[in-house]
């Protein structure tokens, strides 16, 4: 059954429903107003990292050594015990670091762009002044 046919069927059903006068209203679920949300995606779309912060922004909550010795096992066990508490904090910190880094990057781009616009305007002004003098 093609999509065109199902669309035709839907239209036909709509007419039938209209003719029968069925009431479409249903009690609301209650969150229709509280789902409004600022566009976080746009916030995250800020371009890459500032070089100075790039090396340090990321906090690793895991045990670093890759050896399989007893020390590593103990560390791993401790990590598991405290992980429940520590990991969400580290995740929050990492999220904050990234937000900060990206915001700074965006600001630096805006400043860069405005600097070049100012330079262009200055040049135009001086050219206009020169023409005036002539």
């Amino acid at each position, binding site marked *: *059954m093609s*999509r065109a046919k199902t669309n035709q069927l*839907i239209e036909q059903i709509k007419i039938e429903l209209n003719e029968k006068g069925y009431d479409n209203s249903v009690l609301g679920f*209650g969150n229709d107003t509280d789902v409004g949300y600022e566009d976080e995606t746009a916030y995250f779309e800020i371009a890459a990292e500032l070089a100075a912060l790039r090396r340090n922004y*990321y906090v690793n909550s895991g045990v670093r050594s*890759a050896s399989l010795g007893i020390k590593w096992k103990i560390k791993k066990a401790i990590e598991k015990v405290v992980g429940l508490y520590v990991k969400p904090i580290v995740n929050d910190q*990492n999220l904050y670091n*990234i937000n900060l880094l990206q915001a700074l990057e965006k600001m630096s781009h805006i400043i860069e762009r405005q600097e070049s616009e100012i330079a262009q305007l200055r040049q135009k002004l001086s050219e206009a002044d020169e023409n005036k003098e002539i």
Partner: protein
Amino acid sequence: MRVIQMLPSISYGDGVGNDCLAIHEFLTEAGCDTAIYAGHIGKGLNIKKIFPMEQVGAVEADDIIIYHLSTGNNMNFQFGQMPGKKILRYHNITPGYFFRPYSTLYQKECDYGRAGLRFLADKVHYCMPASDYNGKELQELGYRCPVSTVPIIIPFKDYDEKPDEEILRKYDDGKTNVIFTGRISPNKCQEDIIKTFYLYKKYFDTEARLFLVGSSKGMDAYCDKLKDYVEKLELSDVYFTGHIPFKQILAYYKLADAFVCMSEHEGFCIPLVEAMYFEVPIVAYNSSAIGETLGKSGILLNEKDYLLAAACIDRLCSDEELCKDVIAEELLQLDKFSIKKTQRLLLDIIKKLTSE
């Protein structure tokens, strides 16, 4: 050269995990030196194939890493800093705002995932999204590497297992069974399924049942609100199954007369393909990747009109010819997700990367 698969967490029965295991099987059959490394390994999995992330060892420049991204995790950032040829298998991340009224933790996790996704934009060599919808999202985020859609791999052979007989006995009584499978989650808009079912019962079939099959883990506030909503509507015959064994899920598919999906965000939507496999006619709202997964099959609604959705369920349950046509188209669409086709796509990508 090794082909490594990495993911933050792998558990029995989860879609991303199944995809990862199926890729592992392909690669092993193709003679690749391959292994899976996961941050968290759930119970009931074949441990021989899967290792803790700590054991990944040194990655060489010619090694291929396939990273499955579907959630917020530190591993998203670690992957970007690893050597080797990096393939991003993007399963999509639910936008955080869906969870805002119910779970700050989930919202933050999703936002963190999107931050990771943005971070990886210039750090991967190839992208393998599970749908064109996911691929488009990657391109919008600034990914400039080659992007090829490789549908999620669904282990259809598992569906031939015997369904739970008790469930079959209990509900196979001639009454209409409407189902939706998938975790209880605000992006899946189970409240809209309930609204549709309310109107369906009111105008078309007072005896019908609705089964919302899926775990509500972590989404208790939303699930409680759904249950309250059912009570407020004075609606009977709505069943929240919670997390149930696979055999029981199969039984619900076997019992189903119609599958209703009102999701507003899906990166692929495996349950739609499952419904196709079990020859259950589908009524779905056209959002995100749903239209793409359905193709020409099912009844796709471009507007969230609950009465219209209810009438479509009624039509499918009462018009045998229409139901047969819809199922026939679903079976044609199902062929697009055949394991062999996906296998070919995947191996072509691996060959391309190894020859570079």
